[in-house]
């Protein structure tokens, strides 16, 4: 299995009465609740935590893109990723991802991802989400029923920009470019591996299968509820005639908290889990799905958005959340068992570990992360021995990578001209 330590970067100072006083954590959240001065510490702590995970042997560290969102203060994941690329050595930089329909022109994504790949020495794992309706339609104004068409065109343009060595003209419906010629271009050839976050659209399954991209189900509702959706994906993989059912064709996000014992986990983490599930996910249902955002085929398949139900999650307790599988929490052995159940049950090789939860302080987060890395991760490495060599969905860094920050502190003497 491959483990990516993920931070959504929630704002940790939403008030206790947030749900009562605000209609949504997303789109029209009260801007006064954001304190820029406090965010200085929040951002740096969150980046420190990602870097810490990078030192513990996680395969990747992950960031994502949300807009106007109280549980994600990362409208530009590439900015965070650039910082991480400099301060980490071996971990993949998993940007999951850039909402490519939102960039004008999307060549920008091809360029910035190329920069990240070059700076990190080929450690980029690229993600191309369609983006949630909240982000894409309500915050960024894309027309719902044209979003997928625009996304498809952006994808075509980015891949072509990455893989074509001579300037070309791109006459798209949404992008008219006479001279596409990206500079720089990525280290990884033909291009960095691509993961596609999805929420049950059949079109997205097919898109991943046809392009050999990894399908990532980023849900907060946990592995038990994900079974039907992932079964649908694997059924489609078979129907579509893919050569294999490698678990690395799929990724899954799971909230995970580890302590010495199950009781300690509840004592340490329950308040932060409560903050996340009962405060951060308070999304106004009117923003969940702009009409036209989902295709008719997807609606008819019955796979509705995790945000679809009215009022999101209604006051879930620790017991509800751990028993329901939203959260995997407990002693290393409890967590190991449940993740093995997740991996085998969903046939998922890429696990996105949501280990910073809600308003969890750094100290607790590091404790949980360290226990996971030392006592859980090693035992799960070889869950899929048949696919141990499947490297199609992961980055391939160059061997000789430089150490950033290794210049002398000051020049010692006047430079000598080359001749």
């Amino acid at each position: 299995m491959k483990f990516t330590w993920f931070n959504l970067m929630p704002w940790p100072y939403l008030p206790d009465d947030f749900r009562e006083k605000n209609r949504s954590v997303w789109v029209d959240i009260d801007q006064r609740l954001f304190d820029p001065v406090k965010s200085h510490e929040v951002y740096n702590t969150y980046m420190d935590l990602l870097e810490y995970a990078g030192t513990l042997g996680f395969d990747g560290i992950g960031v994502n893109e949300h807009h106007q969102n109280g549980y994600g203060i990362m409208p530009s994941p590439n900015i965070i990723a650039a910082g991480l690329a400099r301060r980490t050595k071996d971990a993949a930089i998993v940007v999951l991802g850039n909402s490519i329909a939102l960039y004008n022109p999307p060549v920008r994504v091809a360029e910035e991802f190329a920069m990240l790949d070059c700076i990190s020495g080929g450690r980029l794992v690229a993600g191309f989400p369609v983006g949630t309706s909240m982000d894409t339609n309500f915050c960024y104004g894309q027309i719902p029923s044209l979003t997928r068409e625009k996304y498809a065109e952006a994808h075509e343009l980015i891949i072509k920009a990455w893989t074509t060595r001579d300037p070309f003209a791109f006459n798209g419906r949404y992008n008219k470019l006479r001279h596409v010629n990206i500079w720089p271009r990525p280290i990884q050839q033909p291009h960095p591996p691509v993961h596609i976050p999805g929420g049950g659209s059949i079109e997205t399954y097919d898109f991943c299968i046809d392009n050999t991209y990894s399908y990532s189900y980023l849900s907060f509702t946990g592995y038990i509820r994900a079974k039907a959706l992932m079964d649908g994906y694997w059924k489609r993989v078979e129907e579509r005639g893919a050569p294999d059912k490698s678990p690395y064709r799929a990724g899954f996000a799971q909230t995970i908290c580890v302590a010495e014992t199950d009781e300690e986990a509840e004592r340490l983490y329950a308040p932060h889990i409560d903050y996340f599930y009962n405060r951060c996910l308070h999304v106004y249902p009117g923003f969940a799905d702009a009409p036209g955002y989902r295709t008719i085929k997807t609606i008819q398949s019955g796979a509705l958005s995790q945000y679809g139900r009215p009022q999101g999650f209604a006051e879930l307790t620790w017991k509800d959340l751990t028993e329901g599988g939203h959260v995997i929490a407990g002693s290393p052995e409890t967590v190991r068992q449940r993740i093995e159940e997740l991996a085998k049950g969903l046939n998922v090789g890429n696990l996105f570990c949501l280990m910073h939860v809600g308003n969890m302080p750094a100290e607790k987060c590091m404790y949980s992360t360290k226990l996971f890395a030392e006592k859980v991760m090693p035992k799960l490495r070889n869950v899929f021995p048949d696919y141990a060599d499947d490297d199609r969905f992961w980055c391939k860094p160059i061997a000789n990578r430089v150490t950033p920050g290794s210049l002398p502190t000051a020049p010692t003497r006047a430079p000598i001209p080359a001749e």
Partner: protein
Amino acid sequence: MELKTVQTPHVPVRYFEGGSGPDLVFLHAAGGVTAEDPFLNALAKSHHVYAPLVPGYGDSEEAPEIRDMLDFTLHSWDVVEALGLKDPILVGHSMGGMIAAEMAAIAPNDVSRLALIAPAGLWDDDHPIPDLFSTLPYEMPALLFHDEAAGAAIMTAGRNVEDPGFLQTYLVTNARQLGMAGRILFPIPERGLSQRLYRVKARTVLVWGDSDRLIPPVYAHAFKKGIKGAELVSIPEAGHMVTLEKTAAVVEAVSRLG
């Protein structure tokens, strides 16, 4: 009203037809229109009414290639052409009013009589139009009707909201209809009409409910200013769905055109 089909270059278009009198084309609002619509039926008492459905509405075929305002406008002209009509009275409500105004602006010599009922198409920063696309069903009546309770009763009539299949049908209908409407109404229902409005030559009647909370009456004055000689008929105790709340008064206003 009878539901019929006419072929256009893009898709077969479904339309309601009924009544006798001068030819009149009615372009519906984002909510669509049905054969039982009281306003259509009242109009049909004095007019030969044609009410085409925007592709994707009702049981009509979708037209993915109709994407922007020009596509909508030319498609609507294609429908008039396909119906074999010359200079019909052109009537549009809300989104349909926006399309009708565009049709009259793009082909000013082909429209001599125009009725715009609370049309979309303009934007005033001081009076932002509520976001219809994030409005939940239960919030709609307050936005659309002068009498919220009566409006809620109209909107839920004949619908069994307890039926588990209802939600899926509702979502599919919404995706088809409002998905299509979103191409000219989302996220702001303005596609440059104000730059073209001066071209309208038609004798124009503007009809507005005094308590329209979706497109407030301040927009009536903007349209009146934009279209030379336009006549404004303000209707008291009526909201955006003025066609349902004050059917007779709207029919009377439209009938001023002949």
